[in-house]
């Protein structure tokens, strides 16, 4: 099998952590918090830890698969295990899913920014500007994405925790009660299902050839899951502490409401500006990553040497898919609900199935340096 020369650029562990974490953390700015509080009540912060642990297990299985096929990304593994045709079909399904993911995130973002900040701006202009920037970022390829993720990740995380810290006068420790929310079973089951909220970690398997081997893959994967778990859990907890679970489930964006609730004196109050910049920038970066990966997987499936010619058609597709939902509630109840609650059945189970098939049919990667890997 001929290998495609990697022209995507290379990046290290830090950049890999930043890419994955940005993609995973961005959803904290959206409706995720209110949805979890709605389902799990006050125990949302425990539920997300269950999700985090589940993801760690699933990631370990993916890691085993990648270890079995060294120097191959997951699209190449699909082809190696399932054959060329089936492998390509599976890659294309992943490409389509990422496009759907990018479009849904974009639409969710646009709906929210219209609701909160730009009520009079036409949504088509907002979508167009957003997609134009995503296209520019995608034009610079994976290296460019890795670098901007590296640049913006720390400011975004700092901004996020600054909001949580500044809103602390509003917290009431008693709002945590009852500690197990609607019950342990509900918390654990939802926690297991909501591991979909962490399934973006699988993108590392698509970018493995740009990283410095399996070690980076493993380190980046575990680190980003843990970072995201801590961020999600602390955000959920702070939201419950500030608004109670009854108020928290009503907020469209829990974090935005939290930033609005900041009040120290007449001058230091309502620091939505911090939130806004962090929110927009992290959304841009995360949609750009998903958008680029969608193109990238497509080019890998059809062995197209460069991704740039496909940016324009994919931008058009992104625009179209983003406009399919009729309104905000449709986006949240269909698209986002599927992505954050049920996508794990597809994202995690496919690589795990591939791993089982590879084990059963004794399929392995190439021999490297005279040793079987």
């Amino acid at each position, binding site marked *: 099998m001929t290998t495609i020369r990697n022209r995507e650029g290379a990046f290290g562990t830090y950049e890999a952590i930043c890419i994955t974490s940005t993609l995973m953390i961005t959803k904290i700015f959206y409706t995720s918090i209110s949805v979890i509080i709605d389902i799990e009540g006050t125990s949302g912060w425990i539920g997300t830890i269950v999700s985090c642990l589940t993801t760690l297990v699933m990631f370990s299985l993916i890691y085993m698969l990648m270890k079995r096929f060294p120097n191959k990304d997951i699209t190449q593994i699909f082809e190696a295990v399932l054959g060329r045709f089936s492998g390509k079909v599976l890659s294309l399904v992943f490409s389509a899913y990422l496009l759907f993911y990018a479009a849904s995130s974009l639409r969710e973002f646009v709906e929210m920014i219209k609701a909160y900040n730009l009520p009079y701006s036409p949504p088509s202009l907002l979508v167009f500007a957003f997609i134009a920037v995503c296209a520019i*970022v995608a034009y610079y390829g994976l290296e460019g994405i890795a670098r901007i993720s590296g640049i913006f990740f720390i400011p975004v995380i700092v901004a996020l925790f600054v909001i949580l810290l500044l809103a602390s006068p509003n917290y009431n420790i008693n709002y945590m009660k009852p500690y197990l929310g609607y019950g342990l079973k509900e918390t654990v089951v939802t926690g297991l299902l909501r591991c979909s909220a962490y399934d973006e970690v699988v993108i590392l398997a698509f970018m493995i050839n740009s990283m410095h081997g399996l070690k980076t893959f493993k380190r980046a994967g575990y680190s980003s899951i843990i970072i995201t778990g801590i961020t999600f859990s602390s955000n959920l907890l702070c939201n419950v502490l500030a608004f109670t679970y009854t108020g928290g489930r009503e907020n469209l964006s829990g974090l935005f409401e939290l930033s609005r609730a900041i009040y120290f004196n007449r001058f230091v109050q309502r620091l939505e500006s911090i939130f806004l910049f962090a929110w*927009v920038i992290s959304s841009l970066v995360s949609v750009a990553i998903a958008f680029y990966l969608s193109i990238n997987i497509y080019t890998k499936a059809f062995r197209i040497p460069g991704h740039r010619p496909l940016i324009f058609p994919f931008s058009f597709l992104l625009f179209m898919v983003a406009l399919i939902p009729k309104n905000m509630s449709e986006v949240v109840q269909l698209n986002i609900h599927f992505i954050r609650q049920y996508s794990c059945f597809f994202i995690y189970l496919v690589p795990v199935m591939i791993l089982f098939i590879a084990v059963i049919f004794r399929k392995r990667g190439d021999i490297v340096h005279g040793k079987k890997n």
Partner: protein
Amino acid sequence: MAKKRGIPGLFSLLTYKKPKEEESFYIPETEEEKRQARKIRGVEHKVRGIIKPTPVSMIKKVKTKEQSKGKNKETAREDQSGEKYQVVNKDDGNILAEEISRDIDENMELVKKAFNAEKNKDIIIREFTVGGRLRAFISYIDGMADRITINDFIIKPLMIKKEFQEEDCSLDRILREVLETNQATKISETGEMIYEILVGNTCLFVEGCDYCVSSETKGYERRAVSTPQTEGVVRGSQEAFTENMRTNVTLVRRIVKNKDLSTEFLKIGARNQNQCAVMYIDGLINPAIVEEIKRRIKGLKTDFIAGSGMLEQFIEENTWSIVPTILSTERPDRTASHLIEGKAAIIADGTPFALIVPVSIATMLHTPEDTTLRWQYGTLLRIIRIFALFIATFIPGLYVALTNFHREMIPTDLLIAIAKARENVPFPTIIEVLLMEVSFELIREAGIRIPGIIGNTIGIIGALILGQAAVQANLVSPVLIIIVAITGLGNFAVPDFSVAFAARISRLAFIILGAFLGFYGISLGIVVGAVMLACTKSFGVPMLTYFAPKVSNSNDLVIRRPIWMQEFRPENVNPLDVTRQSKVSRKWVEEAPAPAEDSDEEEQEGKRESKTEGEETGGKEIKGREKKGSGKSGEGIEDEEDEEDDDDQE
């Protein structure tokens, strides 16, 4: 056209006639030439005396055609006057092909022809006899060469010398014994000879020799070394580069007294034959950088490069990037510090600036003063500069976005103040901002163009009067005057001229984005700017290294650590030697303090006493006591052991 008479003439008045074209601008010669040229289609430019550039491939094609047909195609292309057209530039090609001959007359003819001596009165050809026997001549360009050197150290010794004997070529002997100039080289190629004369040297031709001798006689007017105009510092060197490349190289070499400091000279510009020097420390700089610099400069095929500004544009990686990828400095000390960090400097003749490559964006915000001041002050200055860059780029855009889209984010008191100030202003904020920005840029540009003191005053007067009048006329709000003023100050605080320009352009983009999409638009702009900057490279080094991609910090990036903690060179340029200084650069902190003057005598006496004892004990005791005093017993033991070893050896 003959006039129609009678009935047809009347009809002609009724019918439509195409109006005559007015001859507004008519050059009869051109028309004549065009008419002539039409007869000889394809060689119109020849008729007008223009030498059309011909691609090499085309010349080859013509040559092969000629060879295959066995006849000269050019003979077919003769115009009415019978002039023969040639495909190649006959003058240059022929002269360069000619060799320096043994015949002095031929050589003189060659020089005259090469420099078009009939019309060009700059070229001086002085004929004389060496030792009363051999015919010779010197050639130089008037004004470029030093007359005293030529008179006293070339012509005089040659004419005085009497005992000349016949040799195959007497120039060898002249070079050895007669010429009194500090540099003299043999030249046998015509092109080289022409270049030597052009740069101000004097070429000596002697009968019977098929080469000439070029003597160093450069002596044109040049500006003296003066203080920096744009990179002034309070503490630090007050020297700046001049237009003369040699002087500039010397200025740098005077600071870096290192035998490995290498200077390579490269020619730039085919017609103006300019020179540039590539300076680097051999054994420290990554050789790939030097190779890349030389490759780019050698690969330039252009007719005119006036200096570093033009050269920078020719060799930079990304011409579309608004942020410069090459650092330009007028300070020899700054150049030297970059050379020591493992970078290269390119100094072009004609401009008082050196180009430093490769650089990162952090380097652009450094000044030489950061290093000369104590680390706390240097760090503060850097933070101020970063803040200045932020203000210069974002403040007007943020103001427009805030007032147009996000009023709820402004604290109420401030919002009331802004609203009050804007109450009587008829324009929308964006027009207000653009109006003031344009006015500010106009004042700035006018201040630079108007000479002398008036230039400085117009800036202040213009800003004061215009701002005050605009507020009184209710054209702009006072808040906006503050915004524009603080933006201007921020822009002036940016140390690099090109980065300040980039900030000005970005500012305009952010104003527009802020006006259309508020903070959302500004965030979009930030992401686009970041990705473009992150993917821009300066001679292979990413502009945002240290941030993206992450490399280890050299302790001199934003926060300047104390100078003794800066143990490593910047890693982004991959120098061959990363270590700048040893881990303990201040050895004195580990040594015992020098004894005070009063105790000196006691110490001396003690030493004298112990010397006698030491002779017996082998000097162990003294060392042991000293080390005890300094509290470094461990090292004292080592020293004792060393001492013992020495004694054993003895």
